[in-house]
C-alpha cells in the first residue's frame, strides 16, 4: 500500500473529524476542557503528520503514501489519496497552523467555544482533504466542504460587518467553484475517469480548445481562491471581519488551495491551456504584487494592511508558477509555506493586540514597543519574515521565484522585484505606527504576551529561522515533484513518473 504499511493519510483525515465528534460530547459550559481537548486533537494530528515527512522517499517525484478504494464504484470514482513533495508541505503547514489557531483562540473566543473549536477541526479535515485528494470529485467535495466552516467562523465570531463578509466570501468562492465542478464533470464524461493517477498516466488527447476552456473553468475557481487581482476583494473583507484563528487559517492555508489547484490539476492535465493562460495569469500576478502593495500602503486598519499584503505575496507565488520555470515553481511551493507561517504569525500577533485593546486602527497604537517588548520582538521578526529578510524563511522563496522569473520573463521580474521596495514601505510603516514613536497613553495598561502566546509565537519563529537557514529541507523533497510538472519536465529533460 505505501512505505508505512499503514493508511496514514486516512488516519490523518479522520483525527480532527473524530476529535470534533468527541468535543461534541463535552458540555458546552466546560470551556476549558473543550479548549484543552481541541489543542490535544490538533497536536495529535500534527504529530501524526510528521511521519509523512520523516518517511518521505526523497528523490522520488511521484505520489507516496497512496491509498485507493472504490468510492462510487459503478461510476469509476475513487477515494484516492496520496501526497507528493508539493502537497507534503501543505499538509504539514495545515496541521501546524491548526495547533496555532487553537492557541490563539484560547481566550479570544469566549462565546460558543464548543462550536468554534468543532468548526476549526472540521476545517482542518476539509483542508487536509484538498491537499491529499487524488480524485477530481473527491478534491471538489473537500474544496467545497472547506468553505462552510470558514464562512461560519467569519459569520458567527467575526466583527461588526461579519455577516456581509461571510456572505461575500461564501458566494464569491462558491460561484467560482461551480465552474470547477463543470470542469470536473466535463473531464469525467470525456475520459470516463476522475482519478488523477489514471488521468495523468493516460493520454486523453484534449484538444487545445478544450484545454483552453477547461483551464479557464478550473483556473477561475483557483484564481478567486488565491486570490488573484482583480478577484481579491472578498479577502480584505473576510480577513478584517474574521476572528484571529479564522484569519490565520484563511491566509495560512485556505489561500494555498488555489495555487495548489493550479499545480495539481490544471498545469498537469492541460499543458496547452497552461501555455495559453500563463502569460495572462503572470501579468495578473505582477499587477497584484504592485497593486496589493500600494493599496496596503493606504490602509489604516492593520489587519486590512496585512490582508492586502497577502494579495501581493500571493502574486509572487503565482508568478513563480507561471513564469518562474523550475526555480520559480519550487520557490513558489516554499513561498506558500512561508506565507502561511509569516502571515499567519502577523495575524496572530495583531489578534493578541486586538484582544487587549479591541481596535485594529494603527493610530490607536503607537510607541507600544516600550510597553510590550516581547510582543515587539516577535512582531518585528514576523514583519521581517514577511518583508523577505535573509536568514528568515521569506527571503529564500522570494529570491528563488524572482531568479527563476528573471530568466524566463525579465520584464515581469523587474516589476515584481520593485514589489520588495513597496513591501518594505508598507510593513515598516505599520511597525512605525504601531510600535514606535511616543507611547500613546491609551496603551499604558497594555500587558505583554503570556506563556501561551509566547509558545505559539516561538513555534512560528523557530520555523522562520530553520527554513531560512536550511531551505533545502523543503527543496530536497519538493524539487523531484516539481520536475514532474509537464512544463518543467520539458525544460529539465526529465522523464515523467507514470505513476503520478
Amino acid at each position, binding site marked *: 500500500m505505501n512505505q508505512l504499511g499503514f493508511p496514514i493519510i486516512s488516519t490523518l483525515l479522520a483525527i480532527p473529524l473524530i476529535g470534533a465528534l468527541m468535543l461534541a460530547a463535552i458540555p458546552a459550559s466546560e470551556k476549558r476542557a473543550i479548549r484543552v481537548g481541541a489543542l490535544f486533537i490538533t497536536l495529535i494530528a500534527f504529530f501524526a503528520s510528521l511521519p509523512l515527512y520523516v518517511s518521505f522517499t526523497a528523490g522520488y517525484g511521484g505520489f507516496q503514501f497512496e491509498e485507493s478504494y472504490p468510492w462510487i464504484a459503478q461510476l469509476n470514482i475513487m477515494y484516492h489519496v496520496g501526497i507528493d513533495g508539493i502537497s507534503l508541505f501543505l499538509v504539514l503547514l495545515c496541521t501546524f497552523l491548526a495547533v496555532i489557531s487553537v492557541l490563539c483562540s484560547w481566550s479570544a473566543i469566549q462565546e460558543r467555544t464548543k462550536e468554534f473549536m468543532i468548526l476549526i477541526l472540521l476545517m482542518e479535515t476539509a483542508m487536509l482533504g484538498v491537499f491529499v485528494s487524488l480524485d477530481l470529485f473527491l478534491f471538489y467535495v473537500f474544496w467545497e*466542504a472547506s468553505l462552510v466552516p470558514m464562512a461560519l467562523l467569519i459569520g458567527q465570531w467575526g466583527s461588526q460587518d461579519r455577516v456581509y463578509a461571510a456572505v461575500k466570501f461564501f458566494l464569491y468562492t462558491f460561484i467560482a467553484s461551480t465552474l470547477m465542478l463543470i470542469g470536473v464533470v466535463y473531464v469525467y464524461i470525456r475520459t470516463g475517469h476522475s482519478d488523477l493517477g489514471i488521468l495523468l498516466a493516460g493520454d486523453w488527447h484534449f484538444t487545445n480548445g478544450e484545454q483552453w476552456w477547461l483551464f479557464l473553468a478550473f483556473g477561475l475557481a483557483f484564481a478567486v481562491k488565491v486570490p488573484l487581482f482583480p478577484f481579491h476583494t472578498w479577502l480584505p473583507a473576510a480577513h478584517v471581519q474574521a476572528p484571529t484563528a479564522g484569519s490565520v487559517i484563511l491566509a495560512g492555508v485556505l489561500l494555498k488551495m488555489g495555487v495548489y489547484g493550479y499545480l495539481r490539476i490544471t498545469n498537469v492535465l492541460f499543458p496547452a491551456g497552461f501555455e495559453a493562460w500563463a502569460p495572462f495569469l503572470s501579468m495578473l500576478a505582477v499587477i497584484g504584487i504592485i497593486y496589493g502593495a500600494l493599496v496596503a500602503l493606504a490602509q489604516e486598519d492593520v489587519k486590512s494592511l496585512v490582508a492586502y499584503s497577502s494579495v501581493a505575496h500571493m502574486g509572487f507565488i503565482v508568478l513563480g508558477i507561471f513564469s518562474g520555470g523550475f526555480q520559480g515553481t519550487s520557490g513558489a511551493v516554499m513561498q506558500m509555506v512561508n506565507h502561511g507561517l509569516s502571515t499567519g504569525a502577523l495575524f496572530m500577533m495583531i489578534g493578541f493586540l486586538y484582544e487587549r485593546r479591541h481596535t485594529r486602527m494603527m493610530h490607536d497604537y503607537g510607541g507600544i514597543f516600550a510597553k510590550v517588548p516581547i510582543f515587539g520582538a516577535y512582531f518585528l521578526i514576523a514583519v521581517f519574515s514577511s518583508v523577505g529578510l535573509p536568514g528568515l524563511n521569506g527571503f529564500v522563496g522570494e529570491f528563488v521565484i*524572482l531568479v527563476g522569473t528573471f530568466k524566463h520573463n525579465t520584464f515581469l521580474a523587474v516589476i515584481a522585484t520593485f514589489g520588495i521596495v513597496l513591501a518594505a514601505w508598507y510593513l515598516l510603516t505599520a511597525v512605525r505606527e504601531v510600535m514606535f514613536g511616543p507611547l500613546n497613553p491609551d496603551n499604558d495598561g497594555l500587558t505583554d504576551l503570556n506563556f501561551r502566546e509566547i509558545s505559539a509565537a516561538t513555534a512560528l519563529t523557530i520555523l522562520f529561522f530553520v527554513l531560512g537557514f*536550511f531551505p533545502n529541507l523543503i527543496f530536497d523533497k519538493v524539487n523531484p515533484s516539481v520536475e514532474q510538472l509537464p512544463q518543467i519536465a520539458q525544460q529539465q529533460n526529465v522523464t515523467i513518473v507514470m505513476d503520478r
Partner: protein
Amino acid sequence: MVEYVWLTIAFPLIGVLINLFFGRLLEDAFSKWFKRSEVTGFIGSVTVVLSFLVSFAIFLQALGIEHFSHQVKLWDWITIGDFHVAISFLVDPLSIIMLLVVTGVGSLIHIYAVGYMDHDEGSARFFTYLNLFVASMLVLVLSDNYAGLYVGWELVGVCSYLLIGFWFFKPSAADAGKKAFIVNRIGDFGFALGIFLIWSTFGTLDYMEVFHEVGASHGEFASVINWVTILLFVGAIGKSAQIPLYVWLPDAMEGPTPVSALIHAATMVTAGVYMIARNNVLFAMAPNVSLVIAFVGAITAFFAATMALVAFDLKRVLAYSTISQLGYMILAVGVGAYAAGIFHLFTHAFFKALLFMAAGSVMHAMKGVIDMRRLGGLKDKMPETYWTFLIGAAALSGFPLITAGFWSKDNILVKAFELQQPNQAFGIILYTIGIITALLTAFYTFRAVFMTFHGEPRDKNLYDHAHENRRVMTLPLWILAIFSIGAGFLGLPSKLGLPNWIEDGWLYSVMAESHEILEHAHHFAHIGFGLEIALLSISAVVALVGIFGAWHVYIRYPQIAVDTARYAGRFYQLVLDKYRVDELYDTWIIEPGKGLADILAKIVDMNFIDKTLVDGSANSVRGLGHIMAILQTGYIRNYVMVIFVGIVVMGVYFFLL
C-alpha cells in the same frame, strides 16, 4: 586557521543570543557591582574581540603567502536544479582586510559603547543589535558568492534600521530608521536585478566561477557586463550613500553615536566600495560604466562637502563628510584604482570612527548637545577628546606627511589624474573636483574643531557641566588615533620609491586580473617622479590652506563667517537646507506615491472593483432572481448548512452504494 573563519561570525552571534535572552537578567543579577551597559557591553565586546583575534590569526597565516585564497564551505543552502547556492566563505587578502577593519574597529567601538551607553536602560538591546550587525557585516565581506553578499547586504541594512531607530520613542529616530531602510531597498532593487542577471547569464553565483567565465570570454559578455555593473552600482549608491540616494545617511545620525561610528562611517557604508573592489574584474571590463561611477563619486564628494561647510550639528558635519569621503572611494574604484579605494576605506575607517567617537565623547559630556553653536572652548575641559579629535581631523583634512588621510586621499587623486581612457580630460576634471573638495574638507573639518574646542564657550551652563570621559571611552580614541596616523604608511606612493605595501603587496593578487585588463587598455598614464612630487605638494598646500582658512574665519575674524552667510543669503539658506533634496523627493515621489495608493485603495479597489463589479453583479443577480431572494434569509448559517448537509449526504450516499 582559515577553516575556522566561521568563528568570526559565530562569536558575535553567540553574543546576540546571550544578550537577547539573558541580557536583562544578567544586568539585574550584577546590578550591585556593575552598570547595566557594563554587563551586556562586556559580553558584546568580548565576542567581537574574540572574533578579531581569529581574524588576526588568519591574517598572520596569510601574511607572506602569495595568492592566498581559500573557499570555506559550510553547507548547501539552496539547491533547485541548476540553481545552487552554498553558505560558503572566501578568505583572501581583500576579505581579510575587511575582516580586520570590521572586527578591529568594531571591538574598539563596542568597548567605547560600554561607557557611552551607561545612562541607557536599553543596553542589552543595544549590544544585541550591535553584535548582530558585526555578524551580518562579516557575512557580507566573507561570502564567496553574490547570494551571500546580498544576504549580508540586507542584514546590515536591517541592523542599521534597528540601530538608527534605537531610541524608537523619538519620532525623528523612528522615521530616520524607516527612511534608511526604504531608501536602501531602492538601491537593493537594482542590486538584486544585477544578481539575477548574473545568474541567468553565467548559471552560477559563485564569484570565482563568474570571474573565470568572464576572463575566458572574448567580448561576448560585453553588454551583459555593462548591465551587471550598472545594476550592482545602483546597490552601492544606496548602501554607500551616493547621489541621488544619500539622503538617508544624514538622518541616520539619530542613532547612538557608536552606531554612527561603526555602521555609518567605518563599515556598512563602505560595503559598496568593497563590492566594486571585489568585482574589479567586471568593472574593469565596463570602462564606460566605470567612468559614470567615478563621476558620481566625485560629484557626491563635492556636493556633500558643501553641505558640511554650513551644518551646525557636529555629527551631521561628520555625516556629510562621510558621504563626501565615500565619494572619494567611489571615485577611486570608478577610475579603476581598486586598491586605492580599499586603502582609503581602510584609513577612513580609523579616522572617521575616531571623529565620531570623539564627537560622541563631547555629546556624552554635554548632556546630548551636539549643536556647535552651543559648544566652544572645550579643549581644556576635555583634553584627551580634544587631542584625539584633532588627530582625526588632521587625517580627514589630509594634513601632509604624518596622517593616514593624506596618503590615502592623495593616492586616489593621483590615480584620477592619471586616467587616460576614454579621454585624458576626464581625468583632469575628476582630479580637479577632487582637489577642490579636499580644500573644502580641510576647511569644514577645522571649522568643526575650532567651533567645538576653541574660542569662548557659547553656553556657559553646558560648559561648566562638561568633563572628560572615562578611560573606557578615551582609550579606544587613542588607539584609533594611533592608526589614523600610522595606517598611512602602509600605502606610500611607490613612484617616489617608497613601499606601497597595500597595493603592490597585500592586495596585488586580488586585483591582478583587472590590473592586466586596465594596463592592456592603456587606462592609466604613468606619471614620473617630478609630477608625483608636484601633485603631493598641491595636496599638502590645499590641506594647509583649508586649515588656515578655517582658523582665519572662525578664530581670527569670526565676523567673516557671519557676514558671508548674510551676503550669500538665499544661496546660503539653500545649502543649509541641504539643497532641499528631501523636500524634492517628498513632493515628487513620496506624496504622489501615497496619493496613488489612496486612489487605488479608496476609488479603484473599494468603489470600482468591489462595489461596482463584484457587489454590483451580485446585486443584479439578486434583483433578477427570485430564488436568490428566498434563500437570502440573512442568516448565513441557514443556507450554508443546507449546502454542507447536502454535500455530506451525497458523499455518504455514494460511498455506501
